[in-house]
């Protein structure tokens, strides 16, 4: 097996809204803090991977270098929907695995502003002057709202309801309980965009967006950045004892895309590729779901988190409703899920998300998570989904002391 890769530095900005800063400012803040955390400088970095979905063609990595250290190293600018940040991390990790670098920086950033829950697709459609079939479906007009919905809140609602159609004990209340948990968890995370608890009644009574997802069950738009410094096994051995003590091992790094399923004709499948990524990650890391002390998974909507309990094997097949009913994913439950507050409350600046969840898990494994610390955490898992679809799963382990 190829040598291990380690996280030796990590940082994130508080997620929120930064109208007076830009993506380069946010990425710089996270990158410099991660370098400081690693006791390293840009001069040590031999590769840089940068993820920023909305500026995917704008050379974010190079613009970042021009602010913090322009050293001529290879830069990968990465886009992979909501898996963008995790894909950047994996790109940097692969360079180390390939022996091209022994230290690397990965940064994820996004500035979404108040884009609105529906994003650019939520704009009014223009009336066509004349009907002419065009595009891959020979459509004569925009069909959003005419042939169902393809916007995120509805797509993930339908993914959750599809699970409910196959398994008993899953309904509006179970989905709402996911949001109740994540909002409650966020009150302990000073870096979360929102830090406010809501009762189940408040969540179920909030504005309905796409049943069963109310507004409090949808992640917000926002701004933020996160970064990790990665290091090879051989290089780690040469570093300061304090850096080695705080190093976190990347036991698995897996990226999958969605394999063919019959229902692709209706909407993208977010489950099969997650199940496959999880299976590969558990095998690669030599751990099972029962070994996990915490999980940060992609709760873009409450309906998504619930189905991923099963996709990541955190519960028995068909048991996701029961898992949340018995508080299994709460911070003091069987497998704490999204103790950061998750996307629903910590926030979801797209490119930053898949790096920020590594920050969260690594911080717990180092025992440095403050009030929200999961005591004695040794192993954790991160998961992101980019609709379309891409799935990244990482397993992290505390350094043996």
């Amino acid at each position, binding site marked *: 097996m190829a040598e291990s890769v380690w996280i030796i530095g990590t940082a994130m900005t508080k997620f929120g809204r930064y109208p007076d800063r830009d993506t380069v400012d946010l990425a710089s803040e996270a990158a410099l803090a991660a370098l400081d955390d690693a006791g390293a400088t840009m001069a040590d970095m031999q590769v840089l991977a940068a993820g920023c979905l909305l500026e995917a063609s704008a050379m974010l990595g190079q613009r970042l270098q021009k602010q913090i250290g322009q050293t001529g190293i290879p830069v990968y600018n990465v886009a992979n929907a909501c898996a963008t940040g995790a894909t950047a991390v994996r790109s940097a990790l692969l360079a180390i695995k390939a022996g091209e670098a022994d230290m690397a920086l990965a940064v994820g950033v996004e500035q979404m502003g108040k884009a609105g829950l529906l994003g650019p697709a939520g*704009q009014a459609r223009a009336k066509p002057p*004349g009907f002419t079939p065009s595009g891959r479906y020979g459509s004569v007009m925009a069909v959003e709202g005419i042939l169902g919905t393809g916007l995120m809140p509805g797509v993930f609602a339908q993914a959750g309801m599809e699970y409910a159609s196959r398994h008993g004990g899953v309904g509006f209340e179970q989905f709402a309980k996911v949001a109740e948990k994540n909002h409650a968890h966020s009150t302990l995370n000073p870096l979360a965009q929102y830090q406010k608890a809501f009762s189940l009644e408040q969540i179920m009574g909030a504005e309905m967006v796409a049943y069963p997802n109310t507004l409090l069950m949808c992640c917000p738009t926002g701004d933020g950045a996160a970064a990790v410094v990665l290091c090879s096994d051989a290089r780690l051995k040469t570093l300061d004892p304090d850096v080695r003590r705080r190093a976190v091992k990347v036991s698995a790094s897996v990226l999958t895309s969605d394999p063919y399923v019959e229902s692709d004709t209706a909407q993208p499948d977010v489950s099969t590729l997650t199940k496959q990524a999880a299976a590969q990650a558990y095998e690669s890391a030599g751990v099972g779901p029962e070994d996990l002390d915490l999980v940060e998974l992609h709760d873009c909507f409450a309906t998504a988190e619930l189905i991923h309990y099963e996709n990541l094997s955190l519960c028995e097949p068909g048991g996701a409703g029961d898992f949340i009913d018995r508080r299994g994913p709460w911070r003091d439950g069987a497998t704490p899920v999204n103790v950061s507050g998750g996307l629903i409350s910590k926030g979801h600046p797209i490119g930053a998300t898949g790096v920020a969840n590594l920050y969260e898990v690594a911080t717990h494994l180092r025992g440095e998570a403050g009030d929200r610390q999961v005591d004695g955490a040794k192993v954790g898992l991160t998961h992101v989904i980019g609709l379309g679809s891409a799935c990244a799963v990482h397993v992290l382990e505390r350094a043996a002391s």
Partner: protein
Amino acid sequence: MPRVALAVVGEEGKSRRIPVVDYLVLGDDPHLVAKACRACGALYFDRRNACARCSGRDFDHRPLATIGTLRSFTIIHRAAPGVPVPYVSSVVELDGGGVVKANLLEAGTDAEKIDLGMAVKLTTFPCGTDDEGSEAVAFGFVPA
């Protein structure tokens, strides 16, 4: 590969009806038509280059059943401007093959009264007119 014929009813310039997507066939018996992979049978609604499942390159047109099962739904309350809300978006498994997304009609917008797994059947409805008076026709599903 033959192009899917546009089912246009009426003469030139008069009450022209056109399907909103080319996989909807209008006429006396409105139905959906899929491209079916000749090698593995996988079904598609979009223009194809090859099969996503087996990479086969030859396709036949296959008319699909007009009855099926409600596999999932959501009730949309917040939508783009101009889209009337609330409406029900649904995923339907057609009998004999094919999974499709469309609006669920005539079932109300009370989630408690929409049964996952219920039988549904295809219907059509006008969804817009252009400057030349042509009428676009969409499909949806109603409880069977």
